[in-house]
């Protein structure tokens, strides 16, 4: 299913950060990944996010050699759905422009609204064969019986979809479960 890596091969990794809890969970996921395999890391944040970059720089040794990229935020809390659609399109256009230049081998996301334009854009370029990358989505620990909106979309667009509660496997059989991660 996945191509076997050459010895010493490193994957250019794009990590999308979201507000608060999402970033914390992502830091936990990253802390166990072998940096030999996943490097360099580019962190992508919404332009309104003030805290995620600070968290990364505090917690990650590789922050100095990592890139930080911003994209327009898709949705603010309590934003109307009409405005959300317009903002998402704006973010999507920005991502479509940015992804080929970043040329990630792996896109790792864990559910904030910010990640959906990124996943859509990556899937768009993959569809036209201009980008070869794997999309890995990890649903949040707080999702026990139902997926988040991002999860429902990413379920069809991602190559690997991971959940943290086994009940979700019944409705989403393509998902993978390896126990709680938080």
């Amino acid at each position: 299913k996945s191509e076997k890596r050459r010895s010493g091969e490193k994957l250019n990794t794009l990590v999308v950060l979201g507000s608060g809890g999402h970033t914390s969970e992502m830091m936990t996921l990253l802390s166990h990944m072998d940096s030999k395999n996943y490097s360099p890391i580019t962190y992508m944040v919404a332009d309104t996010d003030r805290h995620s970059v600070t968290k990364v720089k505090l917690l990650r040794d590789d922050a100095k050699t990592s890139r930080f990229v911003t994209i327009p935020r898709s949705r603010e809390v309590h934003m109307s759905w009409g405005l959300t659609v317009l903002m998402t399109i704006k973010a999507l256009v920005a991502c479509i422009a940015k992804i080929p230049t970043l040329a990630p081998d792996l896109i790792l996301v864990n559910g904030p609204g910010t990640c959906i334009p990124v996943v859509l854009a990556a899937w768009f370029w993959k569809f036209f064969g201009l980008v070869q990358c794997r999309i890995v989505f990890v649903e949040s620990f707080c999702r026990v019986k139902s997926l988040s909106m991002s999860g429902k979309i990413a379920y069809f667009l991602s190559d690997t979809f991971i959940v943290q509660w086994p009940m979700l496997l019944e409705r989403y059989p393509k998902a993978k479960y390896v126990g709680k991660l938080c």
Partner: protein
Amino acid sequence: AAAAMACLVTVGSTKFEALTQHLDDNASEFLDILEKELGTVKKLYFQYGKTTQNFDTLRKLCKERKVQFEAFEFTPKFKEILAASSLVISHAGAGSITETLHLKKPLLVVVNETLMDNHQIELAEAMCSEGYLFWTNVKGVLEKLSTSNFRKLKPYPKPDAKAFAVLLDKELGFVDET
């Protein structure tokens, strides 16, 4: 330490007036129950995030009962305060829940029913059914506090997210799948 019985109420970065107002309105009963549950309560902390609350009654009663009362929006010392607490009452945010359980603290989760999409109940329910915490809505806080046996809670085994890294390596082709 048994000496400094402390209770922490935390709402993360949310607005949760329903909880803070309920506890302030029922301050006397709340403090009575805490005393019954924890023994002599020396400290009561409120981390109130974006909540608007003056805690007038609680401040007054705590002063009378010689309970040290501290309310703050956020604090850089949150981990220390959490570590020093004997009982935690928390909103149903995943981060607050896991942070509290990683430190093996007795936990009562209060779900905010004014939130539109309340998937938070799912997490509280699931963690409760696995024996790691108790949960309630705001109306049931005092009753849940007085009737729950926090000693019966199981310590939460902090998960090893290494399983994620192993799966990722396999999916991305870093491990021999033969």
